[in-house]
């Protein structure tokens, strides 16, 4: 079927498949809603164990099928998506009464959302699949996994492993399904299905936009363009080692990875030396031109051919050579925007390098980078000056502002800080998202509020006829309303 517009009989066929998927998911949702916390937690534990036990096999499958990233790093992602996510949600109450407050008279009761569509990106396929399955099962929501065309096999394998474990643990039939085909028409038919409760949309801007336009509630992510500022109070060897570990992790496929390092001129030589010590290569101006022509398409989007490739491969694709063992390509830039293509997001081991006069110009450069295409996502600073850290935190428009932390690993949480481990990083209104949080199980519950009478005493004692008295102005009414009885 491909990407062509499917109409007529083809459209009927696609809608029929979507209807069948949704009918199964609805029946599963109905049955799952009757499960108690203990039964739910048992299922989640069994699924976590099954996914964790196959972490290496799935990582190798993902690297081989997508031809992106480093399988050993994808193992770490799978560990985060299963072990750390499980540890994080294990004790969260997601069934029945969540809280009771005698004073307010409000009892909060958890209620599942219903069928969830999990859109999976090519950059983190098996980890995102298992992560979304775990948080959906924890909240008793059936999930339909929708992989990208380049990662169908590994995503299906991950989903199947989880599904078999879930069934063995007593989960309802069809609590995990996956799309039988990956055409755009199929995805749109399910996204816009009136019975779908939520879309968990992790992926490119186009797909996330389509999810939001579908009419179904969606939790999406925004694009990143992470600036990292190093000031002169930072521990430079630590900062550079940390950035190297982050930016080269899985060949830069995490959207929270650093895109540009910004520093004060006075520490530039020391920082460069540290990067070189870790096999980062500062490119000559001519090679920067070749790299930007290769890595960024004329429309400003990153070239998918370089995504998740090693530094040596990217250099080869761009038409220049780098020493064997090169891990990172550093491109010195002097501006931001379309005239400086590498100032935007490229999910590969390429790092823009800015040297600025002082801290103030450095922070202004970070603001430019932040607003260029990563509003609401992530920003990072290496500093030991609390005032500067506070200023940076105030000025960046980012859901996560990381301090002295590798941003790839730091933003996804669970290892370097106490953020929720997640493969769906909310970017707030800046990224057209509904939350800036790391999305997790708590975002997949409808909370009902059982409200017992608790009178507004001041209103009850207040003579409400005063509202109709034109001679009473706001101060007069507030005086009576707030009268101390």
């Amino acid at each position, binding site marked *: 079927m491909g990407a062509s517009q499917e109409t007529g009989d083809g459209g009927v066929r696609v809608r029929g498949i979507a209807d069948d998927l949704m*009918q*199964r998911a*609805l*029946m*599963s*949702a*109905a*049955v799952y*809603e*009757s499960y108690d916390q203990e039964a739910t937690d048992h299922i989640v534990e069994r699924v976590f164990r099954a996914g964790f036990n196959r972490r290496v096999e799935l990582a190798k499958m993902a690297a081989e099928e997508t031809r992106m990233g480093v399988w050993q790093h994808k193992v770490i992602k799978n560990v985060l998506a299963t072990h750390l996510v499980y540890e994080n949600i294990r004790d969260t109450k997601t069934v029945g009464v969540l809280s009771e407050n005698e004073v307010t008279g409000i009892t909060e009761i958890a209620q599942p959302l*219903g069928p969830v569509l999990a859109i999976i990106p090519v950059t983190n396929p098996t980890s995102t699949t298992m992560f979304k399955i775990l948080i959906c099962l924890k909240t008793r929501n059936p999930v339909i996994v929708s992989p990208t065309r380049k990662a169908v096999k590994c995503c299906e394998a991950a989903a199947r492993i989880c599904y078999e474990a879930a069934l063995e643990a007593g989960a*309802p*039939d*069809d609590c995990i399904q996956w799309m039988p085909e990956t055409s755009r028409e199929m995805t749109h038919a399910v996204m816009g299905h009136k*019975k779908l409760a939520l879309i968990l949309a992790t992926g490119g801007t186009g797909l996330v936009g389509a999810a939001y336009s579908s009419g179904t509630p969606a939790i999406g992510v925004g694009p990143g363009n992470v600036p990292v500022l190093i000031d002169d109070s930072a521990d430079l060897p630590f900062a550079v080692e940390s950035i190297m570990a982050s930016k080269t992790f899985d060949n830069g496929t995490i959207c929270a990875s650093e895109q540009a390092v910004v520093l004060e001129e006075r520490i530039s030589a020391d920082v460069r030396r540290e990067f070189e010590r870790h096999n980062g290569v500062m490119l000559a101006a001519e090679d920067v031109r070749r790299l930007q022509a290769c890595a960024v398409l004329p429309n400003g989007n990153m070239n998918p051919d370089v995504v998740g490739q090693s530094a040596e491969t990217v250099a080869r694709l761009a038409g220049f050579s780098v020493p064997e063992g090169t891990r990172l390509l550093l491109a010195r830039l002097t501006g931001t925007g379309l005239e400086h293509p590498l100032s935007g997001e490229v999910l590969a081991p390429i790092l823009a390098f800015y040297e600025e006069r002082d801290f103030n110009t450095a922070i202004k450069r970070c603001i430019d980078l932040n607003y260029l295409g990563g509003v609401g996502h992530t920003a990072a600073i290496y500093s030991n000056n609390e005032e500067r850290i506070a200023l940076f935190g105030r000025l960046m428009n980012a859901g996560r502002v990381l301090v002295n932390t590798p941003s790839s690993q730091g933003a996804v949480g669970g290892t370097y800080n106490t953020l929720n481990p997640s493969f769906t990083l909310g970017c707030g209104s800046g990224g057209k998202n509904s939350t800036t949080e790391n999305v997790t199980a708590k975002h997949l519950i409808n909370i009902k509020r059982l409200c017992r009478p608790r009178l507004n005493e001041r209103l009850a004692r207040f003579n409400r006829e005063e509202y109709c008295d034109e001679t009473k102005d706001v101060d007069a009414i507030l005086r009576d309303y707030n009268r101390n009885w």
Partner: protein
Amino acid sequence: MPTIQNERESLMISTKYEMECDELRCVFTGRLDAEASRADTETFESAWQTAQKERGDRASSMKIIFDLGEVDYVASGFLRLCMQASKKPGGNQLHVVNTSPDIKKLFAMAGLDLFVY
């Protein structure tokens, strides 16, 4: 008036076809989990075939009644059985009756509440 009974520890379904009322009444009891639902499906199909033969040319107007008065849990397998029953010739002849509030809600969530009473 054929009566087919299928008894196991976790399940009992009794099916009864009454010519006068023109209905096939299936009374379920206990927990209709996945395993029980599979067995129930076979029992129901057999009873339906038998009733069809008895009814001859009036086959398309037979009502199917699923009585869940003694049922405290249903799995998705049972919902599938209901869908299957609702698609029998004649259409819209399935009536699921005597459901508890929990099970009524379950059918509503599954979008199958049209034939639940």
